[in-house]
């Protein structure tokens, strides 16, 4: 608790202590009134003072002013009619208790959520004259050597030059399995060094480092307000004046009507009911709980390694009905592997050997995957006269034979007849001395979580999943089928992807949103064109962090359903709070107007709604992840 809050608590306790004897003493008249003024003054003097200041500044719909009018009015009614002052003091007391609770609870959750997102390293160690010196990370120049001790957070991105250790990147990615780091490895700021001392040569300035960029993003996130937040601010702006005007009308109109029809006016009763209105006139519960819910939601997401750039995106994500995926690197690993060898006459290993040798000097991903499949050492002296045919393949001499390795275009160029292969993968044809010798299939592997992710998205109400790929249509369709996607489009250039997304956007109904998920490498235009752009595996990629609205810190597609579920849950809590808080207030107003609810009930309802709304809001922080439990269990064995 802050000093301000402690003082408030003391005042509340003091006032309560004063009230207890007053309640039991059989006091009468002026003495009773004066004695009751003591706790009233103790607990409410600042309200009265602020109310005066408000009047001077023309702020008549200020909470302080309204509470002052309500309680002073109740005191006046006590003098003139009921002789009961307890109610006025109690209303003030409970109001202050509510305010104190709000300030403590909100402050506390605000700080704990902020701490969750706070990855700021305070210092960086540099070695000078054999001793470690802690300096401000902002002062470290690119290329400096910093020392990171076990338990410390890496302050700046860099490359390990000395030492070996394991790193905990949970704060960045939500991934709890530590990863190892040794000499030559790139390390990202924000990771915690777990075991050994590391010396790191910095490759970026502090301000450009991963951790700084993420912090900047997170800090700005809750400034992008959602529709619900705007609605509540607007509602609050009209709610208080409306309630005040109805209170005034309630105090004046019914008695006048009763006078007109010849009954007695009962001014006191109606005034009391009007004062009850004023007690409920503060929109605090609403105003506080909605941004708090979003804030908790953003905090919970960042804990799971999902960075959401604003409450508005969280809201939009909850309405997502169409998910459009990029293929390579998003749903597939982007790593090519030999998936089949089909020789005409040779053995599989012989065919592979020819292909590998012919491609041995190429750095193309396809030749790399061929080499990976060939486990024996490569004898390059067997290869001569290598000729690369751009975009088609390679011609080379291996064991004195002319080998052609490449796609169908290469076969056509050298007029070698080849069979039509309908497999949905990349096909490498091989010809020996211009005679067709067989083909090798190379395909990209699906990420282990892709299928689960697509299914889970469907379970959460996503209507359409669409695959976009630059790859051949056959490959795109095959991957789409494997993952149970609704549609798959292949052979798209980056510009075509934008067009596809634009077309899909026109088909979407109002209030439904379209999400594009990419790896952030070359799909920045699509990311920004979609309602929500999600970049995955974006750790360390500035372009992706810039272009996307939501950033998944690692490349596990299962984070997508986690994010969707979180968004839906968060919005659920937002709606609960809106309906609940407005509902209870309206109910109290109604009951107050017909004289069933008294001031006690009004203040209890008001404070109670706020407490419950705040507690409900905090729930948004806790989310269940579609995590890697299965794999973790496997590892433990």
């Amino acid at each position, binding site marked *: 608790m802050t000093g301000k809050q402690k003082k408030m608590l003391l005042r509340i306790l003091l006032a309560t202590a004063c009230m207890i004897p007053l309640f039991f003493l059989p006091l009468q008249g002026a003495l009773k009134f004066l004695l009751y003024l003591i706790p009233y003054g103790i607990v409410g003097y600042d309200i009265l003072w*602020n109310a005066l*200041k*408000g009047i001077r*500044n023309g*702020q008549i719909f*200020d*909470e302080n002013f309204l509470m002052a009018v309500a309680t002073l009015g109740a005191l006046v009614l006590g003098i003139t009619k009921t002789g009961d002052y307890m109610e006025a003091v109690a209303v003030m007391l409970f109001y202050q208790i509510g*305010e104190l609770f*709000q*300030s403590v609870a*909100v402050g506390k959750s*605000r700080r704990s*959520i*902020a701490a969750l997102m706070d990855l700021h390293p305070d210092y960086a160690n540099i070695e000078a004259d054999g001793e470690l010196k802690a300096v401000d990370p902002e002062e470290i120049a690119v290329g400096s050597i910093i020392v990171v001790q076990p338990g410390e957070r890496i302050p700046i991105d860099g490359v390990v030059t000395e030492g070996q250790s394991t790193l905990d990147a949970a704060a960045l990615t939500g991934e709890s399995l530590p990863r190892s780091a040794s000499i030559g490895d790139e390390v990202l700021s924000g990771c915690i060094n777990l075991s050994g001392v590391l010396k790191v040569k910095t490759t970026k300035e502090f301000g450009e480092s991963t951790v700084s960029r993420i912090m900047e993003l997170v*800090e700005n996130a*809750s*400034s992008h*307000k959602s529709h619900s937040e705007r609605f509540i*601010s607007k509602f*609050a*702006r009209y709610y208080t004046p409306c309630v005040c005007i109805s209170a005034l009308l309630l105090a004046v109109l019914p008695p006048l009507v009763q006078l007109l029809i010849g009954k007695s006016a009962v001014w006191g009763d109606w005034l009391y009911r009007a004062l009850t209105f004023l007690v409920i006139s*503060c*929109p*605090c519960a609403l*105003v*506080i709980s909605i*941004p*708090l819910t979003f*804030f908790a939601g953003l905090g919970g997401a960042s804990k799971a390694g999902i960075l959401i750039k604003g409450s508005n995106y969280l809201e939009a994500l909850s309405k997502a009905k169409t998910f459009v995926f990029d293929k390579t690197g998003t749903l597939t690993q982007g790593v090519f592997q030999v998936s089949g060898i089909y020789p005409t006459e040779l053995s599989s290993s012989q065919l592979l050997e020819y292909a590998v040798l012919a491609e041995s000097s190429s750095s193309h991903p396809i030749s790399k995957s061929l080499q990976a499949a060939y486990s024996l050492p490569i004898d390059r002296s067997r290869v001569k006269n290598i000729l690369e045919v751009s975009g088609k393949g390679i011609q080379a001499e291996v064991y004195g034979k002319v080998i052609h390795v490449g796609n169908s275009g290469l076969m056509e160029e050298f007029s070698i007849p080849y069979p039509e292969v309908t497999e949905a993968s990349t096909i490498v044809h091989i010809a020996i001395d211009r005679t067709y010798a067989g083909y090798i299939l190379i395909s990209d592997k699906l990420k282990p979580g892709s299928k689960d992710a697509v299914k889970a998205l469907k379970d959460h109400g996503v209507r359409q999943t669409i695959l976009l790929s630059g790859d051949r249509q056959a490959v795109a369709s095959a991957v789409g089928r494997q993952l149970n996607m609704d549609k798959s489009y292949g052979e798209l250039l980056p510009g075509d992807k934008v067009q596809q997304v634009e077309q899909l956007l026109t088909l979407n109904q109002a209030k439904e949103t379209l999400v594009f998920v990419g790896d952030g490498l070359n799909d920045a235009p699509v990311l920004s064109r979609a309602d929500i752009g999600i970049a995955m595996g974006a750790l360390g990629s500035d372009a992706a962090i810039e272009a996307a609205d939501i950033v998944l810190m690692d490349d596990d597609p299962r984070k997508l359903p986690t994010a969707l579920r979180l968004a839906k849950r968060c919005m659920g809590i937002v709606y609960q709070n809106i309906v609940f808080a407005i509902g209870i207030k309206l109910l109290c107003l109604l009951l107050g107007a017909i004289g069933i609810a008294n001031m006690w009930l009004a203040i209890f309802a008001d404070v109670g709604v706020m407490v419950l709304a705040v507690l409900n809001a905090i729930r948004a922080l806790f989310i269940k992840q579609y995590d890697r439990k299965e794999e973790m269990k496997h590892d433990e064995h």
Partner: protein
Amino acid sequence: MKKTYRIEVDCGNCANKMEIAAGKVEGVASATVNFMTQKLIIEFHEDVQPSTVMEQVRKACKKVVSDCEIYI
């Protein structure tokens, strides 16, 4: 030009009031109060001096929420 200031404000509704008041100050293009991070983000018009504008912003905010604080 966009600048961020640390603020101190107790209740959410007060933060809303500050946001409206700050937005009406001359020289301010837009004002956003982030109650959760206790920050005021002001976008200034071209060719104004932020420090003089901020004095006015502080005055305007104090007028609607007497116990708020803006750290300029």
